[in-house]
Protein backbone atom coordinates (compact mmCIF):
# COMPACT_ATOMS: atom_id res chain seq x y z
CA UNK A 1 0.00 0.00 0.00
CA UNK A 2 1.18 3.50 -0.79
CA UNK A 3 1.62 5.89 2.12
CA UNK A 4 -0.82 8.80 2.19
CA UNK A 5 0.07 11.67 -0.06
CA UNK A 6 1.21 14.11 2.61
CA UNK A 7 3.61 11.57 4.04
CA UNK A 8 4.92 10.69 0.62
CA UNK A 9 5.65 14.32 -0.13
CA UNK A 10 7.42 14.67 3.17
CA UNK A 11 9.49 11.56 2.51
CA UNK A 12 10.31 12.79 -0.95
CA UNK A 13 11.43 16.09 0.51
CA UNK A 14 13.74 14.36 2.96
CA UNK A 15 15.43 12.38 0.22
CA UNK A 16 15.47 15.18 -2.35
CA UNK A 17 15.26 18.46 -0.50
CA UNK A 18 13.90 21.24 -2.72
CA UNK A 19 16.73 23.54 -3.70
CA UNK A 20 16.16 27.24 -3.79
CA UNK A 21 18.17 29.77 -5.74
CA UNK A 22 18.31 33.49 -5.19
CA UNK A 23 18.93 35.81 -8.09
CA UNK A 24 18.04 39.25 -9.35
CA UNK A 25 15.34 40.42 -11.75
CA UNK A 26 15.72 44.09 -12.66
CA UNK A 27 17.85 44.66 -9.55
CA UNK A 28 15.25 43.09 -7.27
CA UNK A 29 16.32 40.11 -5.15
CA UNK A 30 14.05 37.15 -5.81
CA UNK A 31 14.04 33.47 -4.93
CA UNK A 32 13.00 30.51 -7.02
CA UNK A 33 12.60 26.79 -6.63
CA UNK A 34 15.19 24.99 -8.72
CA UNK A 35 12.61 23.92 -11.32
CA UNK A 36 10.93 27.29 -11.80
CA UNK A 37 11.52 29.43 -14.86
CA UNK A 38 12.46 33.10 -14.92
CA UNK A 39 8.98 33.83 -16.25
CA UNK A 40 7.23 32.10 -13.35
CA UNK A 41 9.34 33.93 -10.78
CA UNK A 42 8.86 37.26 -12.54
CA UNK A 43 5.08 36.81 -12.56
CA UNK A 44 5.10 35.79 -8.87
CA UNK A 45 6.84 39.07 -8.17
CA UNK A 46 4.59 41.19 -10.33
CA UNK A 47 7.25 41.86 -12.95
CA UNK A 48 5.80 42.13 -16.47
CA UNK A 49 7.27 40.02 -19.26
CA UNK A 50 5.14 39.76 -22.42
CA UNK A 51 4.31 36.29 -23.78
CA UNK A 52 2.27 34.87 -26.62
CA UNK A 53 2.95 31.16 -27.12
CA UNK A 54 3.18 30.58 -23.36
CA UNK A 55 0.02 29.56 -21.54
CA UNK A 56 -0.01 28.37 -17.96
CA UNK A 57 -0.94 24.69 -17.94
CA UNK A 58 0.54 23.84 -21.37
CA UNK A 59 4.09 22.73 -22.20
CA UNK A 60 6.56 25.46 -23.15
CA UNK A 61 7.79 26.06 -26.71
CA UNK A 62 10.06 29.07 -26.38
CA UNK A 63 9.00 30.01 -29.88
CA UNK A 64 7.34 33.45 -30.02
CA UNK A 65 10.48 35.06 -28.56
CA UNK A 66 8.49 37.90 -26.97
CA UNK A 67 9.66 36.91 -23.49
CA UNK A 68 13.35 37.35 -24.32
CA UNK A 69 15.30 38.84 -21.45
CA UNK A 70 18.90 39.90 -21.00
CA UNK A 71 21.18 38.03 -18.67
CA UNK A 72 24.14 39.96 -17.38
CA UNK A 73 27.47 38.80 -18.85
CA UNK A 74 25.77 36.65 -21.46
CA UNK A 75 25.84 37.87 -25.06
CA UNK A 76 22.74 35.88 -25.95
CA UNK A 77 19.19 36.81 -25.03
CA UNK A 78 17.24 34.12 -23.20
CA UNK A 79 13.55 33.20 -23.45
CA UNK A 80 12.19 33.66 -19.92
CA UNK A 81 9.58 30.91 -20.36
CA UNK A 82 12.13 28.10 -20.60
CA UNK A 83 15.19 29.51 -18.84
CA UNK A 84 15.90 28.20 -15.35
CA UNK A 85 17.63 30.84 -13.20
CA UNK A 86 21.01 30.09 -11.65
CA UNK A 87 22.23 31.32 -8.32
CA UNK A 88 23.21 35.02 -8.43
CA UNK A 89 22.10 35.44 -12.04
CA UNK A 90 21.15 39.00 -12.95
CA UNK A 91 18.15 39.16 -15.26
CA UNK A 92 17.14 42.37 -17.02
CA UNK A 93 13.62 42.36 -18.42
CA UNK A 94 13.17 45.98 -19.44
CA UNK A 95 16.34 47.26 -21.10
CA UNK A 96 15.91 49.36 -24.19
CA UNK A 97 17.53 46.62 -26.26
CA UNK A 98 15.07 43.97 -25.15
CA UNK A 99 12.06 46.25 -25.45
CA UNK A 100 13.10 47.19 -28.95
CA UNK A 101 13.47 43.60 -30.07
CA UNK A 102 10.11 42.64 -28.58
CA UNK A 103 8.37 45.44 -30.42
CA UNK A 104 9.91 44.44 -33.73
CA UNK A 105 9.09 40.77 -33.25
CA UNK A 106 5.49 41.68 -32.52
CA UNK A 107 5.48 43.89 -35.60
CA UNK A 108 6.70 40.94 -37.65
CA UNK A 109 3.89 38.81 -36.25
CA UNK A 110 1.39 41.52 -37.20
CA UNK A 111 2.70 41.55 -40.78
CA UNK A 112 2.58 37.80 -41.25
CA UNK A 113 -1.15 37.43 -41.78
CA UNK A 114 -4.18 39.65 -41.47
CA UNK A 115 -5.01 41.26 -38.15
CA UNK A 116 -7.63 43.95 -38.68
CA UNK A 117 -9.17 44.61 -35.27
CA UNK A 118 -12.15 46.76 -36.20
CA UNK A 119 -14.02 43.94 -37.91
CA UNK A 120 -12.85 41.16 -35.59
CA UNK A 121 -15.03 39.11 -33.25
CA UNK A 122 -12.22 39.23 -30.68
CA UNK A 123 -11.80 43.00 -30.78
CA UNK A 124 -11.15 44.14 -27.25
CA UNK A 125 -10.68 40.59 -26.01
CA UNK A 126 -7.60 39.54 -27.96
CA UNK A 127 -4.18 38.59 -26.52
CA UNK A 128 -2.43 39.90 -29.61
CA UNK A 129 -4.24 43.22 -29.48
CA UNK A 130 -3.46 43.52 -25.78
CA UNK A 131 0.22 42.92 -26.50
CA UNK A 132 0.34 45.78 -28.99
CA UNK A 133 -1.09 48.01 -26.28
CA UNK A 134 1.32 46.68 -23.64
CA UNK A 135 4.34 47.15 -25.88
CA UNK A 136 3.17 50.51 -27.17
CA UNK A 137 2.97 49.67 -30.86
CA UNK A 138 1.12 52.30 -32.84
CA UNK A 139 2.12 51.37 -36.36
CA UNK A 140 3.96 48.67 -38.28
CA UNK A 141 6.93 49.70 -40.38
CA UNK A 142 7.42 46.46 -42.29
CA UNK A 143 5.45 45.48 -45.38
CA UNK A 144 2.44 43.24 -44.83
CA UNK A 145 2.84 39.78 -46.30
CA UNK A 146 -0.93 39.16 -46.46
CA UNK A 147 -1.12 35.68 -47.86
CA UNK A 148 -4.69 34.65 -48.70
CA UNK A 149 -5.77 31.93 -46.33
CA UNK A 150 -9.08 30.16 -46.14
CA UNK A 151 -11.68 30.08 -43.44
CA UNK A 152 -12.83 26.61 -42.47
CA UNK A 153 -16.35 26.76 -41.07
CA UNK A 154 -17.22 23.11 -41.62
CA UNK A 155 -17.36 22.31 -37.91
CA UNK A 156 -20.86 22.63 -36.57
CA UNK A 157 -19.96 24.85 -33.62
CA UNK A 158 -16.56 26.36 -34.34
CA UNK A 159 -14.62 27.87 -37.18
CA UNK A 160 -10.99 28.57 -37.95
CA UNK A 161 -9.72 31.61 -39.81
CA UNK A 162 -6.09 30.96 -40.70
CA UNK A 163 -5.67 34.63 -41.54
CA UNK A 164 -5.79 35.40 -37.82
CA UNK A 165 -3.47 32.57 -36.74
CA UNK A 166 -0.13 33.45 -35.13
CA UNK A 167 1.15 29.84 -35.05
CA UNK A 168 1.55 29.79 -31.26
CA UNK A 169 0.32 26.18 -31.35
CA UNK A 170 -1.66 26.53 -28.13
CA UNK A 171 -4.48 24.64 -29.89
CA UNK A 172 -2.13 21.81 -30.86
CA UNK A 173 -0.81 21.53 -27.32
CA UNK A 174 -4.11 21.73 -25.49
CA UNK A 175 -5.65 19.14 -27.80
CA UNK A 176 -2.70 16.78 -27.32
CA UNK A 177 -1.76 17.40 -23.71
CA UNK A 178 -5.09 18.12 -22.03
CA UNK A 179 -7.84 16.70 -24.21
CA UNK A 180 -5.67 13.81 -25.41
CA UNK A 181 -7.09 13.78 -28.93
CA UNK A 182 -4.21 15.29 -30.94
CA UNK A 183 -6.58 16.39 -33.65
CA UNK A 184 -4.50 19.48 -34.39
CA UNK A 185 -0.96 19.62 -35.66
CA UNK A 186 1.06 21.78 -37.98
CA UNK A 187 1.86 21.14 -41.65
CA UNK A 188 4.62 22.34 -44.00
CA UNK A 189 7.32 24.54 -42.63
CA UNK A 190 8.64 28.08 -42.41
CA UNK A 191 6.43 30.85 -43.66
CA UNK A 192 4.12 28.26 -45.28
CA UNK A 193 3.31 26.53 -41.96
CA UNK A 194 -0.38 26.11 -41.15
CA UNK A 195 -2.29 24.34 -38.41
CA UNK A 196 -4.36 21.37 -39.59
CA UNK A 197 -6.88 18.87 -38.31
CA UNK A 198 -6.21 15.19 -39.00
CA UNK A 199 -4.96 14.70 -42.58
CA UNK A 200 -5.39 18.37 -43.48
CA UNK A 201 -9.10 17.83 -44.00
CA UNK A 202 -12.07 20.06 -43.24
CA UNK A 203 -12.48 20.36 -39.46
CA UNK A 204 -16.07 19.23 -39.70
CA UNK A 205 -14.99 15.91 -41.22
CA UNK A 206 -12.39 15.19 -38.56
CA UNK A 207 -12.72 11.73 -37.09
CA UNK A 208 -10.73 12.52 -33.98
CA UNK A 209 -12.14 15.90 -32.87
CA UNK A 210 -14.25 15.53 -29.75
CA UNK A 211 -15.77 18.96 -30.19
CA UNK A 212 -14.65 19.95 -26.69
CA UNK A 213 -13.73 23.48 -27.76
CA UNK A 214 -10.59 23.72 -25.63
CA UNK A 215 -8.59 24.82 -28.68
CA UNK A 216 -11.02 27.66 -29.28
CA UNK A 217 -10.66 29.00 -25.78
CA UNK A 218 -6.86 28.86 -25.56
CA UNK A 219 -6.43 30.55 -28.96
CA UNK A 220 -4.98 34.03 -28.34
CA UNK A 221 -6.70 35.63 -31.34
CA UNK A 222 -9.84 35.12 -33.37
CA UNK A 223 -8.27 32.35 -35.43
CA UNK A 224 -10.39 29.85 -33.53
CA UNK A 225 -13.86 31.07 -32.60
CA UNK A 226 -17.32 29.91 -31.73
CA UNK A 227 -19.76 30.36 -34.55
CA UNK A 228 -22.44 33.00 -34.44
CA UNK A 229 -20.36 35.68 -32.71
CA UNK A 230 -20.36 39.16 -34.07
CA UNK A 231 -17.68 41.86 -33.78
CA UNK A 232 -16.09 42.03 -30.31
CA UNK A 233 -18.32 39.30 -28.90
CA UNK A 234 -15.94 36.36 -28.64
CA UNK A 235 -14.82 35.90 -25.05
CA UNK A 236 -12.31 33.18 -24.33
CA UNK A 237 -12.84 31.20 -21.13
CA UNK A 238 -9.71 29.58 -19.83
CA UNK A 239 -10.53 28.72 -16.21
CA UNK A 240 -10.70 25.07 -17.19
CA UNK A 241 -6.97 24.92 -17.81
CA UNK A 242 -5.61 25.51 -14.28
CA UNK A 243 -8.51 23.45 -12.95
CA UNK A 244 -7.80 20.44 -15.16
CA UNK A 245 -4.11 20.77 -14.46
CA UNK A 246 -4.79 20.63 -10.74
CA UNK A 247 -7.16 17.68 -11.05
CA UNK A 248 -4.66 15.71 -13.15
CA UNK A 249 -1.99 16.24 -10.51
CA UNK A 250 -4.47 15.10 -7.90
CA UNK A 251 -5.00 11.88 -9.82
CA UNK A 252 -1.28 11.17 -9.81
CA UNK A 253 -1.01 11.50 -6.08
Amino acid at each position, binding site marked *: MRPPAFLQTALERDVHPVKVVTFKIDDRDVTAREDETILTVARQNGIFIPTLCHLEGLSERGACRLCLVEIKNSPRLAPACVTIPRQDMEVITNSERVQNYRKRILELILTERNHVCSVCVSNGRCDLQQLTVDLGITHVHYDYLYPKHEIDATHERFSIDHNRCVLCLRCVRVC*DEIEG*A*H*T*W*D*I*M*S*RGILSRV*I*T*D*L*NQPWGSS*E*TCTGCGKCVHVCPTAALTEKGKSVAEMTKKRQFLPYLEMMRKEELR
Partner: protein
Amino acid sequence: MANPSPVKSEKSEDRRWRLVNRTMRMHGGRPDALIETLHVIQESFGYLDLDALKYVAQSLRLPLSRVYGVATFYHFFSLKPPGEHTCVVCTGTACYIAGSSAILKQVREDLGISENQTTPDNKVSLLTARCMGSCGLAPAVVFDGEVKGKMTPASVMAQLGRWRHDDD
Protein backbone atom coordinates in the same frame (compact mmCIF):
# COMPACT_ATOMS: atom_id res chain seq x y z
CA MET B 1 0.03 1.94 -64.64
CA ALA B 2 3.18 3.50 -63.31
CA ASN B 3 1.86 4.54 -59.94
CA PRO B 4 -1.13 2.57 -58.79
CA SER B 5 -2.72 4.03 -55.72
CA PRO B 6 -2.02 1.85 -52.72
CA VAL B 7 -5.18 -0.10 -52.06
CA LYS B 8 -6.08 -0.76 -48.47
CA SER B 9 -7.40 -4.29 -48.75
CA GLU B 10 -4.33 -5.65 -50.48
CA LYS B 11 -1.83 -4.48 -47.93
CA SER B 12 -0.81 -7.95 -46.90
CA GLU B 13 -0.55 -9.40 -50.40
CA ASP B 14 1.20 -6.67 -52.37
CA ARG B 15 4.96 -7.17 -52.16
CA ARG B 16 5.46 -3.45 -51.69
CA TRP B 17 3.16 -3.34 -48.70
CA ARG B 18 4.92 -6.33 -47.23
CA LEU B 19 8.10 -4.25 -47.41
CA VAL B 20 6.36 -1.38 -45.65
CA ASN B 21 5.03 -3.68 -42.94
CA ARG B 22 8.46 -5.23 -42.52
CA THR B 23 10.03 -1.80 -41.97
CA MET B 24 7.53 -0.98 -39.25
CA ARG B 25 8.03 -4.35 -37.63
CA MET B 26 11.82 -4.01 -37.69
CA HIS B 27 11.46 -0.81 -35.72
CA GLY B 28 9.21 -2.51 -33.22
CA GLY B 29 6.23 -0.50 -34.44
CA ARG B 30 7.56 2.44 -32.47
CA PRO B 31 6.78 6.07 -33.36
CA ASP B 32 10.38 6.67 -34.43
CA ALA B 33 9.76 4.33 -37.37
CA LEU B 34 7.59 7.01 -38.99
CA ILE B 35 10.16 8.70 -41.25
CA GLU B 36 11.83 5.43 -42.22
CA THR B 37 8.43 4.00 -43.14
CA LEU B 38 7.49 7.03 -45.20
CA HIS B 39 10.78 6.62 -47.09
CA VAL B 40 9.92 3.02 -47.93
CA ILE B 41 6.42 3.97 -49.11
CA GLN B 42 7.72 6.78 -51.26
CA GLU B 43 10.36 4.51 -52.75
CA SER B 44 7.85 1.76 -53.50
CA PHE B 45 4.94 3.84 -54.74
CA GLY B 46 6.63 7.04 -55.86
CA TYR B 47 4.62 9.21 -53.49
CA LEU B 48 2.62 9.20 -50.26
CA ASP B 49 -1.13 9.15 -50.66
CA LEU B 50 -3.62 9.88 -47.91
CA ASP B 51 -4.64 6.28 -47.64
CA ALA B 52 -1.04 5.25 -47.00
CA LEU B 53 -0.59 7.99 -44.39
CA LYS B 54 -3.70 6.79 -42.61
CA TYR B 55 -2.48 3.20 -42.65
CA VAL B 56 0.92 4.18 -41.20
CA ALA B 57 -0.72 6.32 -38.54
CA GLN B 58 -2.89 3.40 -37.46
CA SER B 59 -0.06 0.88 -37.57
CA LEU B 60 2.34 3.01 -35.55
CA ARG B 61 -0.47 4.31 -33.35
CA LEU B 62 0.23 7.93 -34.18
CA PRO B 63 -2.20 10.84 -34.52
CA LEU B 64 -3.23 11.46 -38.14
CA SER B 65 -2.32 15.13 -37.95
CA ARG B 66 1.15 14.33 -36.69
CA VAL B 67 1.82 11.98 -39.60
CA TYR B 68 0.58 14.59 -42.05
CA GLY B 69 2.70 17.24 -40.32
CA VAL B 70 5.83 15.11 -40.65
CA ALA B 71 5.11 14.13 -44.27
CA THR B 72 4.78 17.79 -45.30
CA PHE B 73 7.71 19.08 -43.22
CA TYR B 74 10.29 17.14 -45.20
CA HIS B 75 10.64 18.21 -48.80
CA PHE B 76 11.91 14.82 -49.88
CA PHE B 77 8.39 13.48 -49.52
CA SER B 78 5.75 14.12 -52.12
CA LEU B 79 2.00 13.79 -51.69
CA LYS B 80 1.40 13.90 -55.42
CA PRO B 81 2.15 11.09 -57.88
CA PRO B 82 5.18 11.87 -60.05
CA GLY B 83 5.23 11.73 -63.83
CA GLU B 84 6.87 8.94 -65.80
CA HIS B 85 10.21 10.72 -65.70
CA THR B 86 11.64 13.15 -63.19
CA CYS B 87 14.05 15.96 -63.88
CA VAL B 88 15.66 17.45 -60.78
CA VAL B 89 17.57 20.69 -61.31
CA CYS B 90 20.12 21.37 -58.58
CA THR B 91 19.81 24.88 -57.20
CA GLY B 92 22.68 24.65 -54.74
CA THR B 93 25.20 27.48 -54.55
CA ALA B 94 27.77 26.12 -56.98
CA CYS B 95 25.09 25.23 -59.52
CA TYR B 96 23.36 28.57 -59.02
CA ILE B 97 26.42 30.62 -59.84
CA ALA B 98 27.19 28.27 -62.72
CA GLY B 99 23.82 29.06 -64.30
CA SER B 100 21.22 26.62 -62.96
CA SER B 101 18.60 29.37 -62.94
CA ALA B 102 18.91 29.70 -66.72
CA ILE B 103 18.39 25.94 -67.04
CA LEU B 104 15.39 26.08 -64.76
CA LYS B 105 13.92 29.00 -66.66
CA GLN B 106 14.31 27.19 -69.97
CA VAL B 107 12.77 23.98 -68.65
CA ARG B 108 9.86 25.87 -67.10
CA GLU B 109 9.15 27.71 -70.33
CA ASP B 110 9.53 24.66 -72.50
CA LEU B 111 7.42 22.30 -70.41
CA GLY B 112 4.99 25.00 -69.38
CA ILE B 113 5.10 23.90 -65.75
CA SER B 114 6.86 25.16 -62.64
CA GLU B 115 8.72 23.34 -59.90
CA ASN B 116 6.95 20.42 -58.23
CA GLN B 117 4.57 20.06 -61.16
CA THR B 118 4.07 17.41 -63.80
CA THR B 119 3.33 17.96 -67.47
CA PRO B 120 -0.33 17.40 -68.43
CA ASP B 121 0.65 14.30 -70.46
CA ASN B 122 2.14 12.91 -67.22
CA LYS B 123 5.53 12.45 -68.89
CA VAL B 124 7.85 14.72 -66.91
CA SER B 125 7.91 16.04 -63.35
CA LEU B 126 10.10 19.05 -62.67
CA LEU B 127 11.76 19.25 -59.26
CA THR B 128 14.56 21.20 -57.68
CA ALA B 129 17.09 20.05 -55.10
CA ARG B 130 19.33 21.86 -52.67
CA CYS B 131 22.75 20.53 -53.54
CA MET B 132 23.46 16.91 -54.30
CA GLY B 133 27.13 17.34 -53.55
CA SER B 134 28.10 17.28 -57.22
CA CYS B 135 29.40 20.84 -57.00
CA GLY B 136 32.58 19.90 -58.81
CA LEU B 137 30.45 19.33 -61.91
CA ALA B 138 28.10 22.28 -61.61
CA PRO B 139 25.51 22.82 -62.87
CA ALA B 140 24.09 19.37 -62.19
CA VAL B 141 20.74 17.89 -63.20
CA VAL B 142 19.36 14.50 -62.14
CA PHE B 143 17.45 12.61 -64.83
CA ASP B 144 15.49 9.70 -63.37
CA GLY B 145 17.96 9.32 -60.53
CA GLU B 146 21.09 9.65 -62.64
CA VAL B 147 23.25 12.69 -61.94
CA LYS B 148 24.62 14.50 -64.98
CA GLY B 149 27.15 17.28 -64.57
CA LYS B 150 28.19 20.38 -66.55
CA MET B 151 24.74 20.79 -68.05
CA THR B 152 23.51 23.61 -70.29
CA PRO B 153 19.93 24.60 -71.09
CA ALA B 154 20.38 22.98 -74.50
CA SER B 155 21.67 19.66 -73.17
CA VAL B 156 18.88 19.46 -70.63
CA MET B 157 16.26 20.22 -73.27
CA ALA B 158 17.74 17.51 -75.48
CA GLN B 159 17.24 14.89 -72.77
CA LEU B 160 13.72 16.14 -72.03
CA GLY B 161 12.95 16.00 -75.73
CA ARG B 162 13.96 12.33 -75.87
CA TRP B 163 11.61 11.54 -72.99
CA ARG B 164 8.69 13.40 -74.42
CA HIS B 165 8.88 11.72 -77.78
CA ASP B 166 9.94 8.26 -76.69
CA ASP B 167 6.65 6.59 -77.38
CA ASP B 168 5.03 8.91 -79.83
